[in-house]
């Protein structure tokens, strides 16, 4: 059942005949490469490329989730509706605002803690585990636990404010309180991923560099400032772009904790797409909104890619 024919060993003739393309893998190896990639490619086409193409098509039709088929041709009018819809742009802004609120925290705090953790000589595993553990908890569980803690009157976080003589913000009833709630939750929850990226990068830095610095009389703080941070710059670039992209995709926390409330004032664009496409049954319109959002994400990624290419320090 498994087609495990090994590729034939490349013949010497082949290699001799093409000296110019010596760096390219021999044809047989190439074929094996495609063969190994097939399971991934099949899934990638079926669940990513395919749906994107279908989405592109139905964004031109009045497709609905209450009827089979694509519905009536409406041309670009779904796009016109999306681009002129205030709710869509408001939700786009909420996704951007969430990114602006969380990205600096999630790029800098893990860096700080990863450096501190790497400086601890004993039981480092404990700190690594402690910081990474929240990341593996499913979003629904995290949100339910935080919802308990944010509950007015009885919640732990609400009460914690009063211990230090402050009054807790209204986490579910006001827009600012809701943003505070969701940002705090997100930082605690997703902190670990960036922390691990930084930790891995720190381990890559050769011990000898530190040793040399030590011999030259550099203090630990100087070592961090002059060695660790400069050598971590490429990783910081990576973490930054990964964080921006994942923050722009926010959905779970806001949907489960706040349902986009109060009065849709925190609803991110993905929830807008979900609401119009599934709750309001307007599949074609939601597909058009998705495409607009997709273009924005592609532009951001491409911009980052170009910026990185231009500056050799980050290459």
């Amino acid at each position, binding site marked *: *059942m498994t087609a495990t024919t090994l590729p034939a060993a490349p013949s010497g003739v082949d290699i001799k005949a093409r000296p110019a393309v010596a760096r390219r893998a021999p044809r047989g190896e190439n074929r094996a490469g495609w063969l190994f990639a097939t399971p991934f490619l099949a899934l990638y086409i079926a669940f990513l490329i395919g749906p994107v193409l279908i989405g592109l098509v139905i964004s031109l039709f009045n497709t609905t989730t*209450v009827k089979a088929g694509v519905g009536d041709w409406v041309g670009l009018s779904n796009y016109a509706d999306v681009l002129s819809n205030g709710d869509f742009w408001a939700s786009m802004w909420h996704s951007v605002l969430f990114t602006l609120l969380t990205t600096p925290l999630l790029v800098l705090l893990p860096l700080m803690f990863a450096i501190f953790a790497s400086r601890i000589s004993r039981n480092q595993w404990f700190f690594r585990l402690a910081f990474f553990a929240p990341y593996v908890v499913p979003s629904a569980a995290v949100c339910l636990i935080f919802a308990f803690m944010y509950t*007015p009157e009885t919640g732990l976080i609400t009460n914690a404010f009063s211990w230090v003589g402050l009054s807790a913000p209204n986490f*579910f009833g006001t827009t600012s309180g809701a943003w505070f709630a969701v940002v705090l939750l997100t930082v605690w929850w997703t902190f670990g991923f960036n922390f691990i990226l930084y930790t891995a990068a720190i381990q890559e830095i050769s011990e000898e560099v530190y040793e040399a610095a030590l011999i030259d009389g550099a203090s630990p703080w100087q070592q961090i400032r002059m060695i660790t941070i400069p050598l971590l710059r490429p990783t910081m670039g990576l973490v930054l772009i990964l964080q921006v992209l994942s923050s722009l995709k926010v959905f779970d926390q806001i949907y489960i904790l706040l349902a986009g409330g109060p009065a849709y004032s925190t609803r991110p664009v993905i929830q807008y797409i979900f609401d119009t496409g599934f*709750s*309001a*049954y*307007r599949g074609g319109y939601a597909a058009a909104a998705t495409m607009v959002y997709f273009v924005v994400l592609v532009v951001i990624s491409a911009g980052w890619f170009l910026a990185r290419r231009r500056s050799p320090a980050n290459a």
Partner: protein
Amino acid sequence: MPEFSRRQFLTAGAGVTLAVAMSGCASPIVTSFTGGQPKTADVIYWHLFGGGDGANMATMVKQFQESSGESVESTLLSWGNPFYTKLSLAASSGRPPDVTISHLSRLPLLAQAGLLEPIGDQFSAEGVTKAKFTPAAWDKATVDGTTYAVPLDTHPFVLFYNIALAEKAGLLDPTGENLKPMKNADDFVAALQAMKDANGLDYAAVASITADPSTCWRFFLMIYSGVAGPIVTDLGTKVTIDRSAMEETFAFMRSLTQEKALLPGNATATTSSTLFSQGRVGFLFDGVWQIPTYRGIEGLDFNVVPFPALLGPDPVAYADSHSLVVPRSSGRSAARTQNSVRFVKGLLDQSSIWADGGHVPAWLPVQKSKEFLELKPQSNYTEAAFNAVYDPVAWYTGAGSDFQTAMGSVIASVLTGGTDPTSGVDAMTTSLEAFSTARPPV
């Protein structure tokens, strides 16, 4: 010990998997690939009832199974939008349940999309006919002349009162089982004022206004419908707001929370239940489904009655209904449909159990039965089921919809004093324009 080669092991594994998958063509694994609802029971039933309603529904299903011998697979899904999303996707992709629940306010879209079987001859053969239902509910179950749903109940927005406080304020009629009759808004305001003054309360009444747009909407539509027709017509594509009626409604509602300070303008669902159960207000404006919440509270003796006529000449009740529907499925056999019809009839016959949750049974044989007439306070507000006004007919309206959230947010800002009645009408109009001009999915 015999040794398997890896290849033998994989082949055997695949063979076993395939055999399991293919065994019995009705297995859920196969039907998930071929389409169609797996036939794991005589009737597949989906509903959205948690809590007390869920327990009552479970009892009804169990009793039906025992008395009829039919098997029913009952699945509880999450209330509101997620339920309707799942239902419409299941129905449009051809693998719906045999029987499910729909709010009547949510029915127009499902019916227009052709996802439901009409309630036809097979039902009338079992005695399920128009004459045996509350007329307002049956009418709402009828879309473009065809009936698509069997109403199970009516659950109106009603007036709860604290009996001890009402007595002290001299509001009870001689029998002591109801309030003195009120004819209009003036009588109603006078009663609230008396409740507040006689008992020295901060507020006479409470309604959950903050972060509860649906309650705001119910409160508003009840009053507005006394003086004007639906706010949208032509299946939701035409805005037909009566500006002066709406301004009058807003001004009246605002006077209760602001000028007269009879209701707190800032009250969440928790605030309302706390204030009413502790006797800190004499009235509560809420849906009948809240009755079980207050039933067990010690020291709270309350009654529930319909709202009197307010701005208009006749009393109006905002209401919605749960109904039983049979989603369209090409693969359903006649025998299976027959099972479904019997199941629906079986649930109707047990709707006195359902009434325990505060609902008025829509099935007249139960509604007029001695058992229900003796059930208090449920039988007090049967009249409200007959005066019921539902959400306007449109693809975007209905229980838990974005429409209710949008409308309710405007109403809440009027009630809290943030918006004056005239701007409230403008905000409502703007919001409705967005809904009515969006391209309908049907």
